Protein backbone atom coordinates (compact mmCIF):
# COMPACT_ATOMS: atom_id res chain seq x y z
CA UNK A 1 0.00 0.00 0.00
CA UNK A 2 1.69 3.19 -1.17
CA UNK A 3 1.49 6.33 0.92
CA UNK A 4 1.42 9.53 -1.09
CA UNK A 5 3.07 12.85 -0.33
CA UNK A 6 -0.13 14.43 1.00
CA UNK A 7 -0.81 11.50 3.32
CA UNK A 8 2.78 11.53 4.61
CA UNK A 9 2.57 15.27 5.13
CA UNK A 10 -0.67 14.92 7.11
CA UNK A 11 0.87 12.18 9.27
CA UNK A 12 3.95 14.33 9.94
CA UNK A 13 1.70 17.29 10.73
CA UNK A 14 -0.30 15.17 13.18
CA UNK A 15 2.77 13.82 14.96
CA UNK A 16 4.43 17.24 15.12
CA UNK A 17 1.23 18.87 16.50
CA UNK A 18 1.06 16.26 19.29
CA UNK A 19 4.78 16.54 20.09
CA UNK A 20 4.80 20.34 20.07
CA UNK A 21 1.74 20.58 22.29
CA UNK A 22 2.85 17.97 24.84
CA UNK A 23 6.39 19.38 25.04
CA UNK A 24 5.13 22.94 25.38
CA UNK A 25 2.46 22.05 27.91
CA UNK A 26 4.89 20.22 30.19
CA UNK A 27 7.37 23.08 29.87
CA UNK A 28 4.90 25.90 30.51
CA UNK A 29 2.33 24.43 32.89
CA UNK A 30 4.70 24.15 35.91
CA UNK A 31 5.20 27.93 35.59
CA UNK A 32 1.58 28.53 36.55
CA UNK A 33 1.54 31.07 39.42
CA UNK A 34 0.89 29.31 42.72
CA UNK A 35 -0.65 30.44 45.99
CA UNK A 36 -2.93 33.42 46.39
CA UNK A 37 -3.06 35.05 42.98
CA UNK A 38 -5.33 37.70 41.59
CA UNK A 39 -7.39 37.27 38.43
CA UNK A 40 -5.29 39.63 36.30
CA UNK A 41 -2.20 37.54 37.02
CA UNK A 42 -4.03 34.39 35.86
CA UNK A 43 -5.22 36.09 32.67
CA UNK A 44 -1.73 37.38 32.03
CA UNK A 45 -0.31 33.86 32.42
CA UNK A 46 -2.85 32.26 30.04
CA UNK A 47 -2.52 35.10 27.54
CA UNK A 48 1.24 34.57 27.51
CA UNK A 49 0.71 30.80 27.26
CA UNK A 50 -1.54 31.06 24.18
CA UNK A 51 0.64 33.66 22.44
CA UNK A 52 3.87 31.72 22.94
CA UNK A 53 2.19 28.45 21.97
CA UNK A 54 0.96 30.05 18.73
CA UNK A 55 4.39 31.43 17.83
CA UNK A 56 6.21 28.20 18.78
CA UNK A 57 3.67 26.11 16.81
CA UNK A 58 4.02 28.22 13.66
CA UNK A 59 7.83 28.19 13.74
CA UNK A 60 7.99 24.46 14.57
CA UNK A 61 5.49 23.59 11.80
CA UNK A 62 7.50 25.60 9.22
CA UNK A 63 10.79 23.98 10.28
CA UNK A 64 9.27 20.47 10.34
CA UNK A 65 7.65 21.07 6.94
CA UNK A 66 11.00 22.13 5.39
CA UNK A 67 12.83 19.16 6.96
CA UNK A 68 10.06 16.81 5.77
CA UNK A 69 10.24 18.13 2.18
CA UNK A 70 14.03 17.68 2.12
CA UNK A 71 13.69 14.17 3.59
CA UNK A 72 10.91 13.34 1.08
CA UNK A 73 13.03 14.45 -1.88
CA UNK A 74 16.07 12.49 -0.71
CA UNK A 75 14.21 9.27 0.09
CA UNK A 76 11.75 9.13 -2.81
CA UNK A 77 13.76 11.09 -5.44
CA UNK A 78 10.43 12.83 -6.18
CA UNK A 79 9.65 16.52 -6.06
CA UNK A 80 6.79 17.55 -3.80
CA UNK A 81 3.68 19.00 -5.54
CA UNK A 82 4.12 22.72 -6.04
CA UNK A 83 0.39 23.52 -5.93
CA UNK A 84 -2.94 22.44 -4.45
CA UNK A 85 -5.44 21.04 -6.95
CA UNK A 86 -9.22 20.67 -6.61
CA UNK A 87 -8.95 17.45 -4.56
CA UNK A 88 -6.50 19.06 -2.11
CA UNK A 89 -8.77 22.10 -1.75
CA UNK A 90 -11.87 19.95 -1.19
CA UNK A 91 -10.09 17.85 1.43
CA UNK A 92 -8.75 21.02 3.10
CA UNK A 93 -12.28 22.42 3.28
CA UNK A 94 -13.74 19.24 4.78
CA UNK A 95 -10.86 18.86 7.26
CA UNK A 96 -11.24 22.52 8.30
CA UNK A 97 -14.99 22.02 8.75
CA UNK A 98 -14.37 19.06 11.11
CA UNK A 99 -11.64 20.97 12.89
CA UNK A 100 -13.83 24.07 13.48
CA UNK A 101 -16.71 21.86 14.63
CA UNK A 102 -14.52 20.33 17.35
CA UNK A 103 -13.21 23.74 18.42
CA UNK A 104 -16.73 25.19 18.62
CA UNK A 105 -17.82 22.29 20.85
CA UNK A 106 -14.82 22.99 23.12
CA UNK A 107 -15.65 26.70 23.12
CA UNK A 108 -19.26 26.00 24.14
CA UNK A 109 -18.12 23.66 26.93
CA UNK A 110 -15.69 26.37 28.14
CA UNK A 111 -18.47 28.97 28.16
CA UNK A 112 -20.80 26.54 29.94
CA UNK A 113 -18.19 25.87 32.62
CA UNK A 114 -17.81 29.62 33.05
CA UNK A 115 -21.57 29.94 33.47
CA UNK A 116 -21.70 27.35 36.25
CA UNK A 117 -18.93 29.19 38.06
CA UNK A 118 -15.89 27.05 37.30
CA UNK A 119 -12.40 28.47 37.82
CA UNK A 120 -10.90 30.51 34.99
CA UNK A 121 -8.00 28.05 34.90
CA UNK A 122 -10.34 25.25 33.80
CA UNK A 123 -11.91 27.48 31.13
CA UNK A 124 -8.52 28.23 29.60
CA UNK A 125 -7.47 24.58 29.79
CA UNK A 126 -10.67 23.57 27.94
CA UNK A 127 -10.12 26.29 25.31
CA UNK A 128 -6.47 25.34 24.71
CA UNK A 129 -7.36 21.63 24.80
CA UNK A 130 -10.11 22.10 22.23
CA UNK A 131 -7.68 24.07 20.04
CA UNK A 132 -5.22 21.20 20.19
CA UNK A 133 -7.94 18.56 19.62
CA UNK A 134 -9.28 20.49 16.63
CA UNK A 135 -5.77 20.53 15.14
CA UNK A 136 -5.50 16.76 15.63
CA UNK A 137 -8.98 16.18 14.17
CA UNK A 138 -8.04 18.33 11.15
CA UNK A 139 -4.93 16.23 10.45
CA UNK A 140 -6.79 12.94 11.04
CA UNK A 141 -9.58 14.07 8.71
CA UNK A 142 -7.05 14.81 5.97
CA UNK A 143 -5.47 11.36 6.35
CA UNK A 144 -8.93 9.76 6.26
CA UNK A 145 -10.13 11.67 3.19
CA UNK A 146 -6.92 11.11 1.24
CA UNK A 147 -7.10 7.38 2.02
CA UNK A 148 -10.84 6.74 1.73
CA UNK A 149 -11.81 9.40 -0.78
CA UNK A 150 -14.23 12.31 -0.74
Amino acid at each position, binding site marked *: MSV*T*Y*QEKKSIVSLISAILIFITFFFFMYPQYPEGEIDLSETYSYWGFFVLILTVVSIIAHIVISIVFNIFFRITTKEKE*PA*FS*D*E*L*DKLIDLKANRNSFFVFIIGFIIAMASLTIGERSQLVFIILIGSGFTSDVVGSLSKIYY*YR*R*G*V
Partner: protein
Amino acid sequence: MSKHLVGNHIRKLRFHYDEMTQQQLADKAGVTRQTIVALEKGNYSPSLELAFRIALAFNLPLEEVFFYGDTTNLKNK
Protein backbone atom coordinates in the same frame (compact mmCIF):
# COMPACT_ATOMS: atom_id res chain seq x y z
CA MET B 1 -23.93 0.33 -3.96
CA SER B 2 -20.74 2.31 -4.40
CA LYS B 3 -20.58 5.81 -2.93
CA HIS B 4 -19.12 7.24 -6.13
CA LEU B 5 -21.24 6.81 -9.22
CA VAL B 6 -18.84 8.46 -11.66
CA GLY B 7 -16.51 5.75 -12.92
CA ASN B 8 -13.64 6.00 -15.36
CA HIS B 9 -11.34 4.00 -17.61
CA ILE B 10 -8.23 6.06 -16.81
CA ARG B 11 -6.06 3.13 -15.79
CA LYS B 12 -6.87 1.18 -18.96
CA LEU B 13 -6.45 4.27 -21.15
CA ARG B 14 -3.05 5.07 -19.64
CA PHE B 15 -1.94 1.55 -20.45
CA HIS B 16 -3.08 1.88 -24.06
CA TYR B 17 -1.58 5.33 -24.34
CA ASP B 18 2.10 4.28 -24.42
CA GLU B 19 1.88 3.24 -20.75
CA MET B 20 1.59 6.82 -19.68
CA THR B 21 2.55 7.25 -16.01
CA GLN B 22 0.20 8.74 -13.45
CA GLN B 23 2.57 11.69 -13.10
CA GLN B 24 2.54 12.34 -16.87
CA LEU B 25 -1.26 12.34 -16.92
CA ALA B 26 -1.34 14.54 -13.82
CA ASP B 27 0.97 17.05 -15.53
CA LYS B 28 -1.21 17.08 -18.66
CA ALA B 29 -4.41 17.54 -16.66
CA GLY B 30 -2.90 20.10 -14.28
CA VAL B 31 -3.44 18.14 -11.07
CA THR B 32 -1.25 16.24 -8.62
CA ARG B 33 -0.49 12.53 -8.94
CA GLN B 34 -2.52 11.96 -5.78
CA THR B 35 -5.67 13.05 -7.62
CA ILE B 36 -5.04 10.60 -10.47
CA VAL B 37 -4.50 7.85 -7.87
CA ALA B 38 -7.80 8.77 -6.17
CA LEU B 39 -9.63 8.81 -9.53
CA GLU B 40 -8.28 5.40 -10.54
CA LYS B 41 -9.27 3.93 -7.18
CA GLY B 42 -12.76 5.38 -7.62
CA ASN B 43 -12.33 7.46 -4.47
CA TYR B 44 -13.07 10.78 -6.11
CA SER B 45 -15.55 12.13 -8.64
CA PRO B 46 -13.80 14.91 -10.56
CA SER B 47 -15.24 18.30 -11.42
CA LEU B 48 -16.60 18.68 -14.91
CA GLU B 49 -13.61 20.85 -15.86
CA LEU B 50 -11.08 18.24 -14.70
CA ALA B 51 -13.02 15.47 -16.45
CA PHE B 52 -12.76 17.42 -19.72
CA ARG B 53 -9.05 18.09 -19.18
CA ILE B 54 -8.38 14.38 -18.64
CA ALA B 55 -10.42 13.44 -21.70
CA LEU B 56 -8.45 16.03 -23.66
CA ALA B 57 -5.18 14.51 -22.45
CA PHE B 58 -6.26 11.21 -24.07
CA ASN B 59 -7.73 12.96 -27.14
CA LEU B 60 -11.02 11.20 -26.47
CA PRO B 61 -14.57 12.39 -25.91
CA LEU B 62 -15.66 12.63 -22.28
CA GLU B 63 -17.99 9.62 -22.38
CA GLU B 64 -15.16 7.33 -23.47
CA VAL B 65 -13.16 8.18 -20.37
CA PHE B 66 -15.91 8.61 -17.78
CA PHE B 67 -19.25 6.92 -17.26
CA TYR B 68 -22.12 7.26 -14.87
CA GLY B 69 -23.26 4.17 -13.01
CA ASP B 70 -22.28 1.61 -10.42
CA THR B 71 -18.48 1.41 -10.30
CA THR B 72 -18.29 -1.64 -8.01
CA ASN B 73 -17.55 -4.08 -10.82
CA LEU B 74 -14.85 -1.83 -12.27
CA LYS B 75 -13.15 -1.53 -8.86
CA ASN B 76 -13.02 -5.29 -8.45
CA LYS B 77 -11.24 -5.80 -11.76
